[in-house]
């Protein structure tokens, strides 16, 4: 059970699942958005087609080694983060690479990819890329604060920094969503920024910034980014599920819960216009921060 081979195999399966689910969710989001806008919309597998097309592009250009390896950084980071998160809560499936304290590790490993991406975009020399990156980083500082407050509140409440421990707690004590409601609210509000859907999509605003950081990437670079983005999305969703919804004991439950979580930023985005960067930051330092404080107080008092 505990052999290295098993771990590696589990990891590969996790990656494939994450890729598939992530892309499917993205496609579904396009479909649902279209339906809301009274359109037929693309098929839910449209994103697979896009990915395939991008992968099959015959030429690609780069402006230097950093741009070339930026998507690879992103990929490494995405894969590592999805491997660190326990996908299922019973520990038998996808045990992957859990160790104590992984929440903090997770946060930083997620940033690693962004940094690589930022460096890659930086080297293109396209001003739009750099502007997008600064916007992204600024926005990140914005939503990380309530997010970390929510995490800290949970960690304080259960005196652990380990996701595995938190999952165990929820097995017996009910979902954290109910026992720490404020942390959940703060976390969800922070998640809106994390997914970079509207209204927080100024980072890669297509018409304003020419898609920002990725503006110089096409073909296989874009493919790598797209797939790592989907893996990331899955990782974040699973993280939320693990944190607040008690994890999932099997794949169906996992899909249901993750999709439920995924609906939140998506639906919020469909009906929202776009924030400017400082507005976004101020948004996150308003109510989400307040809820974060409430969560902290709640965790400390009760």
């Amino acid at each position, binding site marked *: 059970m505990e052999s290295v081979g098993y771990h590696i195999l589990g990891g590969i399966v996790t990656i494939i699942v994450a890729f598939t689910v992530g892309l499917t969710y993205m496609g579904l989001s396009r479909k649902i958005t279209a339906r809301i806008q009274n359109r037929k919309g693309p098929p839910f597998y449209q994103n697979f087609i896009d990915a395939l097309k991008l992968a099959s592009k015959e030429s690609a*250009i780069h402006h230097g080694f950093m741009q070339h390896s930026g998507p690879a950084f992103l990929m490494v980071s995405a894969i590592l983060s999805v491997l660190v998160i326990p996908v299922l809560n019973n520990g038998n499936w996808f045990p992957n690479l859990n160790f104590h304290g992984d929440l903090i590790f997770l946060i930083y490993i997620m940033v690693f990819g962004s940094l690589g991406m930022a460096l890659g975009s*930086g080297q293109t020399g*396209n001003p739009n890329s750099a502007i997008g990156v600064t916007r992204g980083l600024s926005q990140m500082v914005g939503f990380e*604060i309530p997010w970390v407050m929510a995490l*800290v509140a949970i960690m304080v409440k259960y005196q652990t*920094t380990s996701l595995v421990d938190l999952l165990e707690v929820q097995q017996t004590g009910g979902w954290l969503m109910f026992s720490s409601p404020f942390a959940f609210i703060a976390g969800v509000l922070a998640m809106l920024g994390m997914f970079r859907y509207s209204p927080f999509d100024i980072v890669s605003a297509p018409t304003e910034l020419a898609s920002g950081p990725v503006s110089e990437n096409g073909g296989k670079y874009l493919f790598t980014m797209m797939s790592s983005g989907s893996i990331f999305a899955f990782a974040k969703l699973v993280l939320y599920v693990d944190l607040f919804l008690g994890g999932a004991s099997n794949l169906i439950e996992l899909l249901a819960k993750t999709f439920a979580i995924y609906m939140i930023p998506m639906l919020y985005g469909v009906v929202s216009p776009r924030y400017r960067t*400082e507005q976004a930051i101020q948004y996150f*330092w308003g109510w989400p921060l307040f809820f974060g404080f409430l969560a902290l107080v709640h965790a400390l008092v009760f």
Partner: protein
Amino acid sequence: METILTIFIIFIAGTAATYFLGKLNGVLRSILFLATLAATGWLFFTGITPESGIEFRILGITMGWGITPFSYIFAIIVMGLALLSGIYAVKAMEDEKNLNFFFANFLLTVMSMMGILFSLDLISFFIFWEIMTWSSYFMVVFTGKDVQKVGIKYILFSAIGAYAMLMAIVFIYSFTGSVLIGDFIDNFHLFDTQMQWLIPILLLTGFGVKSALMPLHVWAPGAYSNSPMSYTAMFSGALSKMGIYGMVIVLILIVQQIPNGYWIKEVIAWMGGITAAMATLWAIKQDDAKKMLAYSSIGQLGYIIVGVAIGTPLAMLAGLFMAVMHGIFKSTLFMVVGAVERQTGTSNFTEVTGLIRKMPWTFLAALMSIIALAGIPPLGGFIGKWMLYESLMGSNHYLLIIMIFFSSTAAFLYCFKFLFGFFLGQEEKEWSHVKEAPAMMVIPMLILAGFAFLLGIFPGLILKPINEGMQFLGYVSTTNRFWEMSIIFNDWGNAVVMMPIFYWIIGVFVFFLVFLTIKGYKTTRYVSTKDISTSGEIPKEHENLTFTMGFMQPFLRAVAPVMKRQIDKYYTSIGNGLEALFDFTRRINTGNGQTYALYFVVFIIILLLFKDSLF
């Protein structure tokens, strides 16, 4: 025992030789300089063990020199950085004037830092402290830029700090009759309550200045950015650690003896947290790499202070580990700036861009150090941050975690700015002539960057001496299997094992992807940075497409209310007010002889009036 004296004698002789013989010949000077560093370094790493020590008496006061396992950690930083930045300096400074002064002063600083670490008594500690202060001062003003402003600010704050410390030392001496640090610590509980509070506060003020704690930090940005970069590498990397060194001793060995002394630690930890947050914001605002790194240093020292002020075993481990890491990566970054400045003539982000293809090795060093600085795995910075978070969690400092987290997240902003500003972005024609820095400058940087990487993979290498030092401070041993990754007990009693296999898997991934990318690199085509999508417009060579002005403007707009108030301005207004006051008081000497005669009479009258109280 003799080794200590030998080291100091070599230092002094080397300083004198570098200064006087250095006037004759540049090569001789460099050789003497490096030989001194090498000789002392060799003696230190081979001949000194934590048990060495000597005692002697001056003015009837018993003094002692020796090294403790705790100061050994810092001595490693100092000697290592001195050697590497020394090599760097020889090349980097070769076109400057007054080099014999520079190198002699460099040696003097290194000697004084070693002296501080070797001092077992407060008097020699203070003496070396002051030597360090003025020798580093001469380096701050060495370039002749902003001398009166930056230099005086530095010496003013240093003097305030040092004299606060001296005051404490004097009290200690008059109470215990001994200046030995050991005696002081042993007898501290005998002091009366007032003194028990006053002495640590005074000492912490002194150390706080050097470690740039928030209200006392205003000298740092100017001083760090003003001295030659080859020196700042050591200034920020090693010299600021002397403040940390003293702070640890005070906080752990002394403050713990005070009833309710817990509050001092809390306050210092919070000040550290605020320092980290505010300095990070200011670092984001800077357009000059030196200033930015200076603020970044202040912020990083804030983390370290948080660690050592919390003082739980894990926090202390985190603080000291971060101190070592900061010494490594911040020196590298300052060296990088120095190299860039040497090759391009400026260190301003808004001017230099796109050097990555011109100075790839420098970029590599910068990249590694930035990753370490940002605390991103797998480099060493992460280990320290991770331990810090764990320890803060374990010691119930939740708001501090958020503060630290905020600053370390915001740090990404300036980390990116640093890399982007110099190395990425458009490759302008203006910098097309730039070449890679000389090997003598690049190699020390790469060595240091390599250390940052090594300590990320094998933190046990440095955790072992840190652990021994902490045992000296009275902590229980936390690890002995240091060659494995590291076994770190967090405060909640869980043995945390970072599995080696875990890192192997990371390694495989990295290898895999890097291999893929390198393979793919050949099948894709390189195009120049002018070839970007610009709505079809064809940019000319001279057109500046680089985005560096107002780089983090949206973020700065969001945090503008916090940054509106500057401590610097308050100090300036206090200073101006005092100078105006002094200008007023000195008018007592009116210049009129008759007024003096009047004073004479008034003085008699005053003395007669107050004769009962004065005599």
